[in-house]
């Protein structure tokens, strides 16, 4: 299975910045396609009310880490 080559993920072009989507949980699938390019929503790709912002193209791992850090901050500061 696979090609045996090191796989480089394509960058994610959009990130959802809707305030209500910055908390954790909800849908497990965080990736979708917006305007023909990969898009990440920390609350779940199937959620309603995305507010897409262009990232300039960043790795998915970076978006996941940033979302996790934001959620941790929100828990600390008691944001619901």
């Amino acid at each position, binding site marked *: *299975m*696979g*090609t045996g080559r090191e*796989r480089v*993920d*394509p*960058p*994610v072009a959009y990130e959802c910045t809707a305030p209500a989507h910055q908390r954790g949980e909800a849908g*497990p*699938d*965080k*990736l*979708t*396609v*917006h305007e*023909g390019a*990969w898009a990440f929503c920390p609350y779940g*790709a*199937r959620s309603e009310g995305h507010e897409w912002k262009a990232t300039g193209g960043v790795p*998915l791992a970076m978006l996941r880490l940033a979302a996790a850090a934001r959620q941790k901050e929100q828990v600390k500061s008691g944001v619901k």
Partner: protein
Amino acid sequence: MSRASRARETGDGPAVRPRVLVIDDDDAICDLLRDALTDEGYAVATVPHGAAALELMKHDQPAVILCDLRMPIMDGWSFVEQYRRVAQPAASVIILSAVRDAEESAKRLGVAGFIGKPFELDEVVAQIERCIAAS
């Protein structure tokens, strides 16, 4: 001429378009794959979950199935198990997923290929071509 058409062109007849079935509950991903693979010369059908795929395959046999893992109603794991049980599996299954450890899951399922999301369309086309060439 598309790569799929070139691969299937015969000397005296029209090209046969290999059929690809996409199983994913994300409409945007289905649309992306349908547009790209149609441009490549494949005949593409999309369904939102495994149960719909099994229903469709009662009368339409694809050459390759691109299958997400996490879906409502019937997920990718169940689909692969059911597909092998109810049908003489004729199609190669390629798992497309962003699930952690999805590649391990794909290996355990014994499918023909795995592609992590996000993916490059070229990678999808290359794996489909490899499956068709091997069949």
